[in-house]
């Protein structure tokens, strides 16, 4: 009767704790065992018995220190984990195989922590969906165990909740062209206004209904028109309204333009690469010439205009020909 399974191409692997067994002499002996097992068509169990004997003999005969896991540490850690799972059960806890990496989930946000050997900071953040803002820095600080980490995580989420709500409303009602897939870490939105104009707003997460930082990108005439609108309306900013409502008021808009459904129109807006460096990173400058309307990064345009012999510099603005249509174009000098 043939032995099953066969011993052809058999591999023996050892866990990290007894990796010290992996020396030449031991290997030779083990390979001998495997060969013998192949020849004599042994059963797996009898092979394992022999292997066990060999390991035992080897461990007794050599001075090699075999690493035995520290059961105290493990017990302590399991206890910490158990407490953490019970504490704030709405926050889900998941882990990798070795229990070294722990992920905390709450709604659609997660923070990933790695266990460290440091007594002061036993948990290090290796990934986080939370925005990187000054007061949230040093998440690790004072996080002595996982339960504390959970509390801190919930606390930060609660602070941001209002800001996220404002941004969600913008995402639902505007055509956001940057970030393309907004997630919880993004505190800015670049909103499409027209073919030659977009506005980027950056909100203060701690005071989300306050006037955000507003920056227009596009061709000079449109930027000027909208900047004028904003300065005329800015005193009307209403702290009882949402950012979206206030933005409509600031920009004299009834509704924001809807997202284009057709792929081609979408592409025409989103895939506007900079006409100088050809990079996809959204450009912030558009040629005023309606027939040209090429997109540029101010940095690239300013660099090119500086190489032009006929350029003019007024304060920190530089004027010269558009690289495409040769019409006059200007931008602030950036380095």
């Amino acid at each position: 009767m043939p032995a099953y399974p066969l011993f052809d191409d058999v591999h023996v692997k050892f866990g990290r704790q007894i990796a010290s067994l992996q020396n030449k002499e031991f290997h030779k002996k083990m390979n001998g065992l495997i060969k013998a097992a192949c020849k004599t068509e042994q059963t797996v169990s009898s092979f394992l018995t022999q292997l066990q004997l060999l390991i035992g003999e080897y461990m007794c005969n050599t001075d090699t220190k075999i690493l035995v896991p520290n059961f105290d540490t493990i017990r302590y850690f399991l206890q910490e984990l158990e407490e953490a799972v019970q504490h704030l059960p709405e926050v889900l806890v998941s882990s990798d195989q070795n229990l070294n990496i722990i992920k905390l989930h709450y709604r659609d946000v997660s923070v990933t922590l790695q266990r460290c050997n440091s007594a002061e900071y036993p948990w290090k953040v290796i990934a986080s969906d939370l925005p990187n803002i000054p007061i949230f820095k040093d998440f690790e600080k004072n996080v002595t165990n996982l339960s504390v980490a959970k509390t801190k995580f919930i606390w930060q989420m609660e602070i941001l909740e209002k800001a996220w709500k404002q941004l969600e409303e913008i995402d639902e009602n505007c055509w956001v062209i940057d970030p393309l897939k907004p997630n919880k870490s993004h505190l800015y939105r670049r909103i499409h206004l027209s073919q030659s104009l977009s506005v980027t707003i950056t909100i203060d997460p701690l005071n989300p209904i306050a006037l955000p930082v507003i920056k227009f990108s596009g061709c000079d005439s449109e930027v000027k028109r909208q900047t004028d609108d904003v300065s005329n309306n800015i005193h009307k900013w209403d702290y009882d309204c949402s950012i979206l409502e206030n933005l409509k008021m600031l920009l004299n808009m009834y509704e924001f333009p809807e997202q284009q459904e057709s792929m081609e129109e979408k592409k025409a807006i989103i895939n506007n690469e900079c006409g100088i460096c050809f990079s996809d990173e959204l450009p912030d400058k558009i040629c005023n010439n309606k027939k040209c309307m090429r997109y540029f990064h101010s940095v690239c345009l300013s660099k090119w205009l500086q190489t032009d012999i006929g350029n003019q510099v007024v304060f920190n603005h530089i004027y010269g020909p558009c690289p495409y249509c040769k019409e006059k174009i200007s931008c602030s000098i950036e380095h």
Partner: protein
Amino acid sequence: MAATSPSKRRLQKELMSLIREPPPGVHVDGEMVGQNLTQWIVYMEGAKGTLYEGEQFQLQFKFSSKYPFDSPEVTFIGGNIPVHPHVYSNGHICLSILTEDWSPALSVQSICLSIISMLSSCTEKKRPSDNTLYVRTCNKNPKKTKWWYHGKKGIILYILYILCSY
């Protein structure tokens, strides 16, 4: 591939689009360029119905780290340099977009198209009239030449220019 500088990133993008959608009669050795993005060899065929029909040419592009703010150095290389009133026998090309009319709006593709159209519009195959003198005295880099782009006077002016520079 991790392209680092903006200049390399742009070249990478131009290479991809030239491989994907080359103008008729043009192709680039992508594998070779992939190894060194700053030096390209572009193969070009003389367009049908022109004096150069059936001929094969090789163009060499050299890009500095300032590209696209600085124009590339473009020369014909290899055994077959087109016989053309604006192409010297050492491969140098007298074409304004390669020096003073350069703009970052231009690209390898648009340079290739300009050169094809320059060749296609030729009515008589001949070398520039100052060819011998130029080839003997010019700098290895065509961008160092102060070109005059207007017809026959160019020859005289070029001579004056070398005389002055001695």
